[in-house]
């Protein structure tokens, strides 16, 4: 009886994870694409040397971060993939969404100070072992990762000519 209840809960979690996880993922991607289009004006480079046109302009450190989790269904896929090997598509999607979200938050940060470009952009991924309550021995807990983007945002000079950084 206990096993049947446990199995039933697992199946419900799988279905809930699949349905809401898929809806959430496509909504998130839609929002990411809209915001990426809106913020395309702010350019990203991970070169350390800003061009000479920026001489004397305002700059500041900008940062964006997000912690992404993976839904129950996609975690299950990843667990099964652990037996057979191969691409973990569900984690790829989670990290891709998170990284683009972190970059967007960094750009939104830069937008607030009126920046045109961000130089020396760094991307970092760290796994965080936030354990679940009532953790069993050997349980890895939540599958989640922090995605972070940071860089130095520069405001374009007032006398910007055709050759200063510009979005398309």
């Amino acid at each position, binding site marked *: 009886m206990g096993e049947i209840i446990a199995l039933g809960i697992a199946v419900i979690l799988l279905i809930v994870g*699949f349905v809401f996880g*898929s809806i959430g993922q496509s909504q998130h991607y839609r929002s990411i694409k809209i915001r990426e289009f809106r913020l*395309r004006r702010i*350019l*990203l*480079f991970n070169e350390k040397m800003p*061009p000479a046109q920026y001489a004397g302009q305002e700059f500041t450190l900008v940062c964006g971060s997000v912690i992404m989790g993976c839904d129950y*269904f*996609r975690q*299950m*896929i990843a667990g*099964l*993939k652990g*037996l*057979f090997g191969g*691409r973990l*598509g*569900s984690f*790829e*999607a989670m990290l*891709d969404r998170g990284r*683009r979200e972190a970059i967007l938050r960094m750009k939104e940060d830069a937008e607030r100070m009126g920046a045109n*470009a961000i130089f020396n952009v760094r991307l970092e991924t760290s796994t965080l072992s936030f354990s679940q309550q009532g953790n069993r*021995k*050997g349980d890895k807990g939540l599958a989640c990762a922090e995605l972070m983007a940071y860089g130095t945002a520069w405001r374009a000079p007032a006398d910007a000519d055709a*050759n*200063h*950084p*510009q*979005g*398309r």
Partner: protein
Amino acid sequence: MSRYSNPPVPHEVNVSEKTPLRDFLRLALGTCLLTVAVVMVVFFATRLFAPKIPFRYEAALNEAVARQFTHNNAASACQKASEAALQTLADELARTMALPPEMRVHVHLRQDAEPNAFATLGGNVMLNRGLLTHIQSENALAMVLAHEIAHIQHRDPIVSIGGGVAVAVLFSALMGNSDGGALVGWAIGLTQMSFSREQESAADEAALAALQKRYGYTNGADEFFTYITQKHPEISRIPAFLSTHPTPPERVKRIQSGFAPALPDLTPLPAAFTCLS
């Protein structure tokens, strides 16, 4: 001076998830098939190699296994005398059947009214008190004992339990369950009912050969099986291919086919058992 710009990049290259539901179903099916395949390989490989395990390792389990089945035994004088008489008969039969010297059989009498007997790990033969009160001749008792001794000689208990134990150990190792002992105990408990029909028939043949050698005839060997057939007629209706034991009527027929034409006098049961009834 160089130009700075950010043309759009194809982000899709970083994500390979296209059909999560189909991936999941394929993986789940693959996992099930893999599990079944691994279990079958482990199970049958263990059964194949179990008889190669030297009997002295099995003998080391003798007392632990015996305790599992005889924990509610009363240590009365009658019990002791009956067990000694059974052991004497079993030792004589073992000699007749040419058991290797290290393969010692231990007979235990259980306080159980159900007429039954079985062989298990460690060279143990368990005989229920109910069996002794339902048979009349030593020949019938010798048939039952020789049958169980033949199981031990053929290493049937370790073969039948080996597969189950190996699978139980595999699962407890995979699931990180430290309570492997309970699983092994559970597998041992199942031994008495999981010999195959081939193993049962082979044990019958060996037992009949032993009786022929000891008494010069096999008459009387069918007594216990005839009794079971009369007492439990429903057993004979179970289709033969469904039950692991050959059905009693079938066994009785097979046993009776070797009887001497004139019925010799059967040997009476040892006197030690009179105190049991």
